[in-house]
């Protein structure tokens, strides 16, 4: 299965909608997208994971890399996710302490903490 990516701007936030499977084969595509956004000056990202069916450790690494990139510009990277099996991966790896995780894109866009 492939990975789908689309981005849109909501206020000062850039929302990246991800669909499909993020694994060792597709993760480079997501990395490229995040790097490009940061290089273009978008430092406040919201990654919408609602359409993600599978996430492996390479995909987690890409999200962590994205977070480190935006933080270098005092930016933020928020996740939108309600899927229990994806949330579980974040919990097991300890990433719930790293990423703010929201129930909806609206919540994530409105969040300022």
């Amino acid at each position, binding site marked *: *299965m492939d990975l789908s990516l689309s981005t849109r701007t909501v206020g000062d936030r850039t929302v990246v909608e991800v669909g499909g*499977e993020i*694994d*060792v084969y597709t993760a480079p595509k997501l990395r490229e997208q995040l790097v490009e956004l940061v290089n273009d000056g978008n430092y406040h990202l919201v990654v919408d994971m609602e359409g993600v*069916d*599978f996430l*492996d*450790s*390479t995909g*987690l*690494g*890409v999200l*962590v*890399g994205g977070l*480190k990139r935006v933080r270098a510009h005092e930016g933020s990277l928020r996740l939108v996710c309600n899927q229990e*099996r994806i949330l579980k991966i974040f*919990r*097991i*790896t*300890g*990433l719930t*302490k*790293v990423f703010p995780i929201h129930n909806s894109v609206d919540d994530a866009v409105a969040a300022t903490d």
Partner: protein
Amino acid sequence: MPATGDGRAPDATDHAGSAERSQSRPGTPQRAAAIPHPRSTPAGGGEPARAAATDFRVLVIEGDGPEHRLFESLAEELGGHAELHRVDGIRAALALLPPTPGAGRRGARYPDFQCVLLDLGAPGELPPGSDGLDALRELLQRAPHTAVVVLTDTAGTGLGAAAVAAGAQDFLVRQDTDGPLLARALRYAVERKRADESQRRLVEAEIRGQENARLQRHLLPTPLLDGAGLSFTRRYRPGRRRALLGGDFYDAVRTKDGRVHVVIGDVCGHGPDEAALGVALRIAWRALVFAGLSGQHLLTTLQHVLEYERRSDEIFATLCMVVLDAPGEQGTPESAELFLAGHPAPLLLGPDAVPMLLPSEQAGPALGLLPCDAAQATWPALRLGLATGWRLLLYTDGLVEGKVGAGSPRLGQEGLIELIADHQAAGLTRGRLVDSAIAEVEELNGGALTDDVAVLLLERNPAPVIMG
């Protein structure tokens, strides 16, 4: 001697790469005619049934001199399904070759030549400072996988031998050569080149395999458990792309105080860098255990090692560590400490009970995610009581990420618990339990797993019965 699989006649090796033998050959056509080669050279349009497609393309680089009759005779000898491209000089020839070796095989822009026949001309015409082989060297560089045969004149046999030493498959003296002999020499050169190429590829693949095996051996060591009285079953399956090394690692060490330290870990991502980092972490872990460290202190130090050794700051590693206390009196319950750093929790299997996923609420983050100095990264211990007959199953996430049926559903930890329970109920233990469990995970996945998988099964050996 590895099989080259190209149909080369066994005694063809007698001639391979030997300039001296080649030198004597052109002058003795009778002997040359006896050189075996796997394909019969059709004389003037033979084998009409298979003559439709071109199967033999020869690039002829002509020098000065009236050689047209020789090449015409060669064309006639090679038959209808061979193609001769005749060009004047090396420049015109290079224009027909792909700019980078091998490019011609992918695109149709360049004809795929099986053989190049290079006429080196008369040695007397050489410009000062040249040994007469510049054109050959350029040719070999641009077409390293193509057989090259050179033609010299009678005065140039020394040059011909030098050409073979430089990498040509053969040389022939123009005056002693006719169409049939030349055709045979070309066919033979192609077969010899093919044999050399498959030999080279085989050696390269062997070296690569050895390098991977060497790296993997360091990821997956022999545990140091002498005197521990433990059974330690360990399995490792590389992922679907075998060439892609994973960063799964494990180790087990018994320290002098009688405690047994076991670790299983996974560096995120794939490739030699990740595998090398896995080796670095495993050896660092072993060294820290030997140095008397454990728990938070050990994991903090290990995280520092990771931070300094990783090539990119998006790389992290998950890890599960179990420290078994030295066993007390025979038959008394045992105890252990569990540390989780972003790693899936082990399963505790009893001899009868349903497998249980150990708690992970106390787990700390994967190594390399959060800074230690801000006290964000802590890895508290979970005390475990282990009833007699305990077994601990440690694994990397590749095992629970296997698919179950079409689409995206995965086995998950719940699925693994059920699967292990079934296999235990079938009476399987130790190595057979682990093997059959992995086999079913692979079967459910519909073939080898994408990610690599490491699995450890740890249990106390039954006490030897001492006969009074």
